[in-house]
């Protein structure tokens, strides 16, 4: 990057990525060997294993033909345990990401190691990005391991190899899960930059998660009802109200993630809203969409997750750059 003039007139020199490599490797290694990571992994495996085991048990009794049987491991919610693997992931991933990121910066503050690190030839840019990427890589490794376990269990217990398109859809699902984790990792990183106390940071991150997970759906539906006309006269009016509810719900990353997953793992999904009777005519029910059409369908959701991750990280970056680090 070319040298530029900063706001305080100081010259910026060198690439902001200098020292990114060591910070990333150190963070990655620290995460993988930490006791916290072990606990999180255990948590994830236990929460993931139950729905997978239950859905596999149910799938083994399925006799009807299903060309996407392998993907049903992820999405089927057996009667004995009314949560699917995907639903479990929907709330495990934020907890994992928050657990990995809530003390990323402020613990260095509290241990008084931040100024020591920054006295090395490492810029603040690289430190924050390295910490974020280290967390994201850890998350990716954990999710990929979990994904492989599920696929392996499916191979063993169903005794049928997944088709190429199923593997491709599964891989896209893994990428969506990592992007979803990235949003929450960036958010927890933001709180760790804002608050000096790790406890406050963790509390705020978990509070935000609880807000989106529990409160936001209710608020969104309350707003939708408030805006809806007292009497709905036509299908178009109903669709408009439904559309408003969907737009509001999509502010929550969890909604974006679950919609992306539904589009990917249920190939029959054509739309997330209702279809007008006119649009329903001639539809072949249950016909799966090709993968590229499914990707186009969920592309806004994926885009939203990735863009949200980048924007939240940018906010954390701006705040971190303006902070006093000497202590």
């Amino acid at each position, binding site marked *: 990057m070319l040298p530029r003039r900063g706001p305080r007139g100081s010259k910026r020199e060198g690439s902001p990525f200098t020292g990114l490599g060591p910070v990333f490797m150190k963070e990655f290694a620290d995460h993988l060997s930490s006791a916290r990571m072990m606990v999180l992994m255990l948590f994830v495996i236990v929460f993931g294993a139950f729905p997978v085991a239950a859905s596999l048990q149910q799938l083994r009794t399925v006799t009807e033909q299903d060309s996407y049987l392998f993907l049903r491991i992820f999405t089927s919610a057996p009667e004995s345990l009314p949560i699917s693997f995907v639903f479990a992931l929907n709330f495990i991933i934020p907890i994992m990401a928050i657990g990995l990121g809530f003390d990323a910066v402020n613990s260095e503050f509290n241990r008084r190691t931040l100024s020591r690190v920054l006295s090395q030839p490492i810029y*603040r840019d690289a430190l924050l990005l390295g910490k974020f990427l280290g967390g994201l890589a850890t998350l990716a490794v954990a999710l990929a391991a979990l994904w492989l376990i599920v696929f392996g269990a499916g191979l063993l217990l169903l005794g049928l190899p997944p088709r190429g398109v199923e593997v491709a859809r599964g891989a896209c699902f893994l990428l969506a899960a990592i992007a979803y984790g990235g949003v929450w990792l960036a958010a927890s990183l933001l709180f760790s930059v804002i608050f000096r106390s790790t406890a406050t940071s963790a509390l705020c991150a978990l509070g935000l998660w609880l807000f989106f997970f529990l409160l936001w759906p209710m608020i969104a539906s309350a707003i939708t009802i408030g805006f809806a006309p007292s009497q709905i006269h036509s299908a178009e009016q109903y669709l408009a109200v439904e559309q408003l509810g969907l737009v509001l719900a999509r502010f929550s990353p969890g909604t974006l993630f679950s919609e992306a997953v539904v589009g990917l793992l249920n190939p029959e999904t054509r739309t997330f809203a209702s279809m007008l009777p006119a649009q329903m005519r001639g539809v072949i029910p249950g016909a799966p969409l090709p993968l590229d059409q499914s990707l186009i369908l969920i592309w806004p959701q994926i885009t939203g997750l990735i863009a949200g991750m980048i924007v939240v990280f940018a906010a954390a970056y701006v705040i971190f750059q303006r902070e006093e680090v000497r202590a």
Partner: protein
Amino acid sequence: MRRLITLLALLVAPFAASQAFAADLPVMQGLFLLTDYPAQTVRAGEISTIRIKMQNSGLAPEAMALSLSGVPSGWKIDILGGGQPVASAMPGQNESVGLQLRVEVPKDAKPGSQQVVLSAKGSRLQSAELPLTLTVGTEAPAKLSLKSRLPSLRGTPRSAFEYSVTVGNDSGRDLTVALSAQGPANFQTTFTEGFGSNEISSIPIEAGQTKDIKIKVTPPRDVKAGDYPVLVKVAAEGATADLRVTLQISGQGRLALSTKDGRLSGEAEIGKASTYTLVLNNDGTAAVDEIEMAGTVPTNWKVEFNPKTIASLAPNEKREVQVMVTPADKAIAGDYVGSFRATARGESSVADFRITVTTSTLWGLAGIGIIAVALLVLLGAVARFGRR
């Protein structure tokens, strides 16, 4: 005056005659042995049956012992009553008893007449005799006849041609008649009894009787228009009879709508026209005129045919039809079913087409743009706030 007397005489005469006849009837008392044909022909080496009736007119019933005399040597004649050999018969007053003579003629019997007398004797001096003349003759050949009321029928390749024919046994013996028919290749013929539904290959016919049978001819579906003869043959013991029936088959066109390679699916992008090539084939036997193309597609979709109408399609002729389908602007990606139809008078063919609707990738590019904007914000932050 003379004329009047003649007229009166003419009027009176029949009355006098009939009164005299009625007065004669009660006089006919007695016991009689009767047969329709007292002189018959029998064949060497064969068994003939002669029906005889013992009539009792106005006498008290009495057991009548039966006996035969004059039976030539080597011949065997049994007296049967009710199917069993009997030795005597007892008809009631003014009643009759049926008897049969079973005549078994030896193979080496010489031609010529033989006199056989059947006599019945009662215990009270009543008796009756019946002389029979049996002539050993040469064998009369079996003879069959075959007639049809409607020997020529008209229809399409898909109609059923049913001919009613009457088979007659004109010989003196019961015959089992074998039925067969010869038609052009791949024409199927079946025989059924007059009103029955069972398929038969032969039918027994008593001597001198006729029977109605039905012949059903099924032509192959792809038969060309024209006249087709079918030769019906009946045969029994060397006797045959045949009859020629005719099928006048008029042609019928048949439409078949498909594509060149038989694939009935295609892709279409939302809001854009996609063209598929259909192939219309006439695999019938006559030309189909004034064919109109039409299509049923989901709401707000557009469908156009080129050509929209076809004036005439000869048998075995193929014609390509372009169909242009435009999904509605608000259609949702996925699989839809549309059906294309070719309709002519009395003939139509439908092809169901599976259309995979795809969305344009334009919105995908917009998403990438949003990510690019987010990255630009980050780069701006780096440039603005970066500390080196």
